């Protein structure tokens, strides 16, 4: 039996930065909010980023206070490691079916001491580091995870039982089972976030085969001080890279891979990562190959200028192919668009493919709201009320509705929370307390 309430005013799907903001804004208006997250920790993509553009503030330093605020808010209940199976209309509200996955650990008694993790004999690629780093079969996702409790990955378990033996809080529950939970909610905010386009999407870039062709989120982890290497190294052999290339639009604006739209953040994250790398590695040479640079937000153009002033090479060129040498350096074949199509082969230690953004969650009939041609959830009124989905009572926030950066996601989350609050006032007239 779950210890959730039978009813919440609002349910927010996804506890990344948009979901947390939407939950906080709704909760601040006195509504009871259930914040559902599929992963073992809240925080989403943002808590794993190194720094944010254009201010270069530490990303987790901004994100973790939001996580703590959501976790401690009296009107927010957080349900991690839980999938949304079904959302069915019931009058103005919804019947919701959730699936709580087993951690094999009692979340109430685990003290997050990591003794089980240190004792576990299995090492597997860590999802938080996009496979570049490792974790144990029983693990706490990262140092900023909320809740700070262990999860046992049973697929990689050797069933040695050491984790329970060393647990000082006696919190392992080896007979835990998946549990379906049924609740009622008055409104739903979908903030299910993003995934990046697959590294193998463009076969000619060999992104899924060559270890030194990395994805941009992996590069964020490489640059993070708590990342897999603790410093910027290339994945094939730990070399300190001295020449790095960025290939823009590697997973966007390309009909051949089914992603015809601009992902809106790739130019800025590439410029940010490039600039930061010059701060981390003395004498590093960085080239960004692009179709055009889109620096459209507040302070973004200035950031673009700053990156060029600090020596980042911005080259208008179309990369046709990436191959590997015997020592795992990379050869980029590029057509220079500003030089009459001159073709050049250039050698790099590492290449970052600027992958685009795709929706992380495709619930189909389980949610029943319309999806646009681009795969993102459709707004019923994108110009006037962009957070309204095609179903009354279901609202959209963050990248679930289309590619956007962190400030835009936060703004949209607030708007979705306000629309949800209005809807709840209209349909349920709850007693709102300050």
């Amino acid at each position, binding site marked *: 039996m*779950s210890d959730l309430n039978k009813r919440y005013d609002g349910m927010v799907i996804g506890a990344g930065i948009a979901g947390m903001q939407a939950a906080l804004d709704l909760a601040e208006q006195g509504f009871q909010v259930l914040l559902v997250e599929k992963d073992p920790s809240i925080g989403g993509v943002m808590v794993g980023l190194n720094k944010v553009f254009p201010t270069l503030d530490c990303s987790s330093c901004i994100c973790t206070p939001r996580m703590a605020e959501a976790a401690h808010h009296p009107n927010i*209940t957080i349900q991690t490691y839980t999938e949304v199976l079904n959302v069915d209309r019931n009058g103005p509200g919804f019947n919701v079916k959730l699936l709580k996955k087993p951690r094999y650990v009692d979340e109430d008694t685990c003290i997050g001491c990591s003794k089980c993790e240190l004792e576990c004999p299995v090492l597997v690629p860590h999802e938080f580091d996009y496979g570049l780093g490792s974790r144990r079969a029983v693990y706490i996702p990262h140092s900023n995870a909320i809740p700070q409790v262990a999860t046992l990955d049973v697929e990689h378990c050797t069933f040695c039982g050491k984790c329970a033996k060393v647990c000082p809080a006696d919190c392992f529950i080896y007979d835990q089972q998946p549990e379906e939970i049924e609740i009622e909610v008055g409104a739903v905010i979908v903030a299910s976030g993003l995934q990046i386009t697959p590294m193998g999407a463009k076969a000619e870039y060999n992104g899924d085969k060559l270890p030194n062709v990395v994805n941009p989120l992996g590069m964020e982890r490489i640059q993070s001080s708590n990342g897999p290497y*603790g410093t910027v190294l290339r994945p094939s052999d730990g070399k300190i890279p001295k020449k790095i290339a960025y290939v823009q639009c590697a997973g966007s604006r390309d009909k051949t891979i089914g992603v015809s739209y601009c992902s809106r953040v790739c130019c800025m994250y590439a410029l940010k990562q490039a600039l930061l790398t010059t701060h981390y590695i003395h004498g590093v040479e960085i080239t960004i190959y692009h179709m055009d640079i889109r620096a459209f937000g507040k302070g973004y153009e200035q950031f673009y200028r700053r990156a060029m002033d600090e020596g980042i090479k911005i080259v208008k060129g179309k990369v046709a192919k990436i191959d590997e040498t015997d020592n795992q350096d990379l050869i980029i074949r590029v057509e220079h668009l500003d030089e009459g199509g001159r073709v050049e082969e250039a050698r790099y230690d590492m290449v970052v493919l600027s992958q685009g953004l795709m929706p992380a969650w495709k619930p189909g009939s389980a949610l029943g709201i319309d999806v646009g041609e681009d795969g993102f959830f459709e707004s019923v009124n994108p110009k006037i009320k962009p957070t309204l989905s095609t179903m009354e009572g279901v609202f959209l926030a963050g990248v679930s509705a289309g590619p956007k950066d962190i400030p835009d996601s936060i703004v949209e989350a607030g708007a979705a929370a306000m629309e949800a609050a209005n809807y709840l006032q209209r349909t349920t007239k709850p007693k709102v307390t300050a």
Partner: protein
Amino acid sequence: MSDKKEAGTNGHAKSEGAASIKVLRDRHGGMSAEMKEYYKELNNIRKLLFDALKSGPMTVPELARKCSLKSETTMWHVMAMRRYGEVVEDKIQGDYYSYRLKEAH
């Protein structure tokens, strides 16, 4: 305002005489053949790397050559050893850090 709830224990109270690992093993049919192979290889690689590092600090390419392992495999394992406090960075040799076993305290 409702009572704050920390949901998520699946309602499983920590039972008296908590289930043994045997329950979990039986329910999942034990380790898969693939997992057994993975685990065996993992231990073999770790033994090779530990033994090699006993002779002194080495870079990832040096370790890979000495242990006849793929370079990227060596890198991943050395970084895992670093993460869990088994090796630490030593000096920089050219473009590479060398790594050494962390002394037992």
